Structure formats: C-alpha cells, structure tokens
C-alpha cells in the first residue's frame, strides 16, 4: 500500500541539496514543516473530538499531541538555524497550518487510510533528510529528523494495524478502495494547488497591467480634483445633542441614525 511512496526518496535525494541549500532555506523549510505538522495536529485533535470509538479517540489524540510537539520542535530548530528567516516565514506558516476537517469530509475508514499514507510519506521523507544532514555534519538536524521519524513510524504502525483489523473484519475491499482514493486525492490536490498558483500569477499580471495602464489617468483626475488633505477632526453633520460649533468638513450621511435601511447598505 505504500509502494508509491517508495519512489519519493529517489526524487527527494536529488532535490534535497537544492531545497535545503543554506541556513535561510533550511529555516524556511523547517517552518513549512512546522505548519504542516500543526495542521495535521489540528485534524487529528478534531478527529479525536468527532469519533465515537474510544480507542480511536485515544490514538488520534496521542497522534495529535505528537504532531503538535513536532511542530514546536521544527519551529524551535528553525529559530536556532536562522531566527530572522524563521520569523519572516510566520506569515507563510499561517497560510498552511490549516485544519482540513478530513475526518468530517472522508469518514472514519478513509481518514485512517489517509493518515497511514501521509505518515508513510513523511517517514520516507524524514529518512532522506536525516541522511542528508548526517552527511553534512549537521548532527542536530539529523537527530531531529531521526527522532520525529520514529514517531512517524509509530503512526504508520498504528494506522496500519487499524487498517489490518478492518481487513480482518471483512472490510478489505473498502480499505483498498480508500487507499486508492487517497492516492487519487493527493494527485487531485496537487493539481488544484498548481491551478491556484497559476491563477494567482495570472491575476497578479492582470492587476499589474491595470495599475500601469488604467490607474495613471484616474490618479491624474484625482489629483486635479482633490481637496486639501483632511487633517484634524471631521465634525458630524447631524447634531442633535450638545452645542459645539461644526467644522467646515461634514460627515454627511455617515452620521445618520442606525436604521435598518442604512444598515442594509454596504457603502
């Protein structure tokens, strides 16, 4: 079931020296890992909340705690390697540490299949990274990946045991189908990610064109028509209380009572 993941180390071994080329790149990648682990932790904890099976609840919960610990270890390591890059990557981390609500979307059996497959992939990846850092005299990072890799191995083992248990209970076809769907899902998600990136680039290009070609005219008009800079307090145009004098600038309709009609407006 994890045959497809066996191809990963081969590709990874070739790309690792480039992706992890210097301290800044290492810190950025570690923060990315931290985000992934945190997102995974959130999903595991949510699964623990949702499942009705006490044993699975315990396993999901422990798994979730492991992932949160991993996230913390990756973050700490990133900060030690390159504090500035780690801090700058926090925004990136926020983009990725999202819970995907996989238990809710997939259901119990496909969720376990997904966990099993993802953990196997992570384990293979961490083995490559452990070897890479050991050969580059980065003992601290090699140890980090070895230790976290051990946890991933346990996650592979427990999720595999659950799947085997379901197979033994006559749900073998269901398990195999779920594992196939996990692979398809991974491919589909990859395609969607690529699509999003392409779309993002296209939108940026269009907006840059808009900025360069259209905005100058409007900026010129705005500059010609613009009033002096609004500095200082602007006074309300409608005063039903008090006796202070009104300034030259009025707030107009913004100060009207909060009626439902006014509240319906978005502007």
């Amino acid at each position, binding site marked *: 079931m994890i045959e497809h993941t066996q191809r990963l180390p081969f590709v990874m071994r070739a790309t690792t020296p480039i992706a992890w080329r210097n301290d800044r790149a290492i810190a950025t990648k570690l923060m990315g890992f931290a985000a992934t682990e945190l997102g995974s932790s959130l999903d595991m904890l949510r699964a623990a909340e949702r499942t009705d099976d006490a044993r699975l609840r315990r396993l999901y919960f422990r798994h979730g705690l492991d992932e949160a610990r991993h996230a913390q270890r990756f973050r700490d390591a990133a900060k030690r390697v390159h504090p*500035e890059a780690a*801090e*700058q990557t926090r925004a990136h981390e926020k983009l990725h540490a999202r819970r995907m609500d996989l238990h809710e979307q997939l259901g119990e059996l496909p969720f376990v299949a997904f966990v099993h497959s993802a953990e196997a992939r992570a384990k293979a990846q961490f083995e490559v990274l452990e070897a890479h850092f050991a050969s580059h005299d980065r003992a601290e990072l090699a140890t980090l990946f070895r230790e976290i890799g051990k946890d991933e191995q346990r996650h592979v083992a427990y999720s595999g045991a659950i799947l085997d248990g379901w197979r033994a209970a006559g749900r073998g076809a269901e398990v195999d189908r779920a594992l196939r769907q996990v692979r398809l899902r991974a491919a589909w998600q990859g395609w969607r990610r690529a699509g999003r990136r392409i779309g993002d680039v296209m939108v940026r290009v269009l907006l840059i064109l808009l900025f360069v070609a259209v*905005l100058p005219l409007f900026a010129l008009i705005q500059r010609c028509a613009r009033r002096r800079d609004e500095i*200082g307090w602007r006074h*309300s145009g409608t005063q039903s209380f008090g006796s202070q004098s009104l300034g030259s600038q009025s707030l107009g309709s913004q100060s009207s009572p909060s009626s439902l009609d006014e509240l319906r407006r*978005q502007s």
Partner: protein
Amino acid sequence: MKVLGLSAFFHDSAAALLVDGQVIAAAQEERWSRLKADASLPLEAARFCVTEAGVSFDDLDWIVFHEKPLRKFERLVTSALDVFPRGMSQFVQSMGLWLGQRLWTKSNIARALDVDPDRILFSDHHRSHAASAFFSSPFERAAVLTADGVGERTTSAIYRAVTDAHGSRLELVKELGFPHSMGLFYSALTAYLGFEVNDGEYKVMGLAPFGDPTRHLPALARICHIHDDGALTLDLRYFSFHRHPTRSFTRRLESLLGPARAPGSALDPRDGRDGQRFADIAAALQRLCERWVMAAAAEARRVTGEDNLCMAGGVALNSVANGKLAAAGPFHEVFVQPAAGDAGGALGAAQLVSHVALGLPRAPPMRDALLGSAESQVEVARFLDDCRIRHETFASDAERDQAIAERLARGEVGGLFQDRMEWGPRALGARSIIADPRSAAMGERVNRKIKFREQFRPFAPAALPDEVERFFVRAPRPDHLSPFMLSVVPVSDAGRATLGAVTHVDGSARVQTVDPAASPRFAALIEAFRARTGVGVLLNTSMNLKGEPICRTAAEAYGVFDRSDLDFLVLERCLVTKSTHQRHSGELS
C-alpha cells in the same frame, strides 16, 4: 429577536449572538481554527453561538457584519490613486484579496450560513466598536472614544451615547480619517521594533518600562504630531503602511531612530546597546500614545459634556494608557469592553441592531467575560478516560481548591480549565495558567519554561477585591477596568515587597480584580490560596504557548500541559499531574 454579529477579514474575526437584546454567546474564530488572530469568516464561532442558544442559522432574524465593505474598498482605491505611481505591490495584493473575496461579503456570508441575503446588514466599523463599549457598560449616557488602525476610513471617533425613555442612541460627534491614526503609528513602530503587527503591541507595552522615554520622544513627537484638540497628524514620509502590503515604515524612520530590529533577533533591554535603544523607543512610543489618549479623551469630554467614558478599538487595549486615563483623566468613570479590538466589532454590531435599530431594551452591564464554549465535568472525565490519562477527581470545588492551593503554595505552576471560555484576549480564570505570585523567580520560570516567551514580559496578578487596596494603588474612582484586566496600576510598597512575580520593572501591574459575585469559582480558588498563604493574589496568564491562541477545549489544554513545564492541570474537577502524565505519555500503540 435573534441577531448574530460577525467581524472578519482583517484580524481577530469573531461572532456574537444576542437574543432579545441579551448576549447569549460570543467567541473568536481563532479558538477553533487555532490560528492566532485568524481573520477568516467566523463560521465555527458562529455555529457555536447559535448552538449555545439552541437555534439554527435559519432562525436568525438578522445577521450583521461589523463594517461596510464597499466603503472600505473605496478607501483602498482612492488611497492607491493618492500614492500613484508608488504602491503597486499594495494595489496588487489588496485588489487580489478584495476582488477574490471581500467585495462579495454579503453573498459569501449568505452562502456559508445558508441564509437569505436580505437578512444581512452592515454596520460601520467604528460605530460597531462604540456600540460594543457603550451597550456593555453600566452607563445610561456616556462619551465614547474609539481608536484603532483604520476602519472603513475612520481611524478614531468620538460619539455621544444615550439610553433613555426614548430608546438608545449613538451619535457621531467627530472623527479622524485615514492615514492619521494612533493605531497605525503604534503598529508601524511595533514592526520597527521587530514584533509582529496586530500581535506584538503587547510586547512593546511590556518593553517600554525598561526604557527612558525622553531620549526619543522629541523625534517621535515630530513625526506624530498631537494637536491641542486631540487630533493627530502623521508625517507620512516616515511610513509606508498606506502604500506597501508588508512594510509599514520607510528608511527615513531608520535614519531618524537607527536601524530597525530584525524580527526574531535576541532582545535584552538592559544590554546598554541596541536592546536599550529599542526599549527607549518603546518607552517614547508608549508615552506618546498615553499623551494622545489623554488629549483625545479631553476633547471627548469637551465636546460631549458627559461625565463617563467608554472606549473601544485596538488602542483601548493599551492597559497602561487606560490605567492613567482612569486615574487622572477628565472623566469620572471609564469603561472598556474586554474584547475591545476587532473581535468586539461582532458584539457591537449585534448590539447596535438590537438596541438602536430594533429598539430592544439593554441587557444588564457586562460583569464577566465568560461568553465562550465550555466542557462539563462529565465531558472532561470522558475525555480523560477515553484517552487513558490518569487523573484524580474531586468530589467538590472546595476540595479541589484546597489541593490546588497547596500545590501552588509549594511552588508548582498549574493550568486551570473551568467554566465558559473568556471573550477577548485575556484569560480571566477560565483558561489560565496560575502560580504563586510571591517570588520573582516564579515569573522567570513561567516565561522561560512554560510560556516560552520573552523574559521582559510581565505577568498579571488576579486579586480578590479586598486585597487590591493592600497591594495596589488605585484612584478613588469606580473601577470598571480591572475585572477585565484592562488597566495597569502602581503596586504599593506592601505589594512590591510581596508580589515579586507580578510586579513589573517600573513597579506597576496589570491587575485583575476577581469579584466573587462575577467569577465565584476563580474567587474561591484565590480565597483557598489566601487561607494557606495569607496572600489573596495569584499570578494569572493565558493558557497557551507562544504564538498560539488560548486553548478552548480540555484536549487543547492538555496539549499545552504536555508541551510545557506545567506541574499540574486542572480540568473542571479533575486533576492531572506531571508525574502521572509522564508515566502514560508514551502509550500510543
């Protein structure tokens, strides 16, 4: 009449539900998504609110968003035209966000909640802030001062608010417009000091007492000019927040103050070099902020003639400024709503619709902030049993409190999870880390080994009301701020001698008064600690680790316990200790 308020799309998104004018529930989305200051549409928080009321989205009469999206969009476009040909990256980023999501707020909300779009309303950003402060306050009439980064276009505003026989009214008197903003000025300097905007402002406040404000105050006062009437003018040559998506200050600011601090770099405010310089700048910034709050409050007093003040907006979370305003400002009484930042806009928007637009009577004033989700003793016990976490269960709260007090008195640090989760950024005894406040070393330990945060950051004391006079110096005015930990006050001589862990370097503390009538369980626990030690005060800080939101569930609380050096964890009436935890934490297979 059921009104759901929502705030989203900048930072601290939240939902709040009012039924017939009574606040039923309010919570921030970050507690569910686990992303600090999460800005996404608060669907989970909203779901919690309606579930808490026993209704569905379909039963809601009105859903009100905290600001007017098109008015904000207009400001972004005119701002882009103003700064043209600069500001391309800002234009591309903000237009991408707006065209892809925020312009369609109404249909997005309608689709996400599956409700009729005609039931969706839009308040005004600062009006929502103002409503949240006034309608949660004990006042029947008051001036309201709102101040934050920027709403649609407004950066701060003065309102006059009244509830009388004719109903409730909230009238705008005057306002300041973008880009002249104390919130943006504070945030830009927060970024200069190497902290994250919308998160690091608390750190600046904690750093300031280490510095000498006089060294950089003249320079900062030149670029942020405060007028006699409380108006504010920024010298925009020093700032780029209006034309750059991520960088909020220019090189000219670095020429003025010296090189900015690299984010994440070490910071020792007593190193006599750059650390000291950054502390001095933080001190000058804080002094300027306090000066502006005082001036704006004086103007609010002058133009409204009111005796009492309500404050809201991110600037109202500056507890040092609040403390000085409450003690020596022009108003007799000051009230700040516990979620004064953007999250509070959700509550305010719902209150505005309920009390002003629909004319529903006001609810009693907000006495506590326990408006979030809870887990019962049964649920907690089931979680611990299912996860095979060894624990001790007490028959009563009194027994539990005795055991906790004993552990605290012998120097242990614990997590406390009970009751409904707090509304707002402060943990007030429901999702708290607690410790003995008597030794300075305890503060260092909690910073270093439990919260993993900067050593210069102080901890707050939670005190019984009759201990406040003994340990703190408080103005002889009614105090509406300390129940929500929203003001910093001087610590008395007795306090400085006794409360080493919660007295900041300048002899101040952000005290929380724990009224037994409002927070009976937390007060009883502090009482048990007093019975054992003679001190009715506890160190109280939020139950989260650095960079994470405060925990919501028992499982998350256990996660904090698992990853930190906490000695024990109290989950309702269950107690988990580190020794039992360690024996079982390896049990995954």
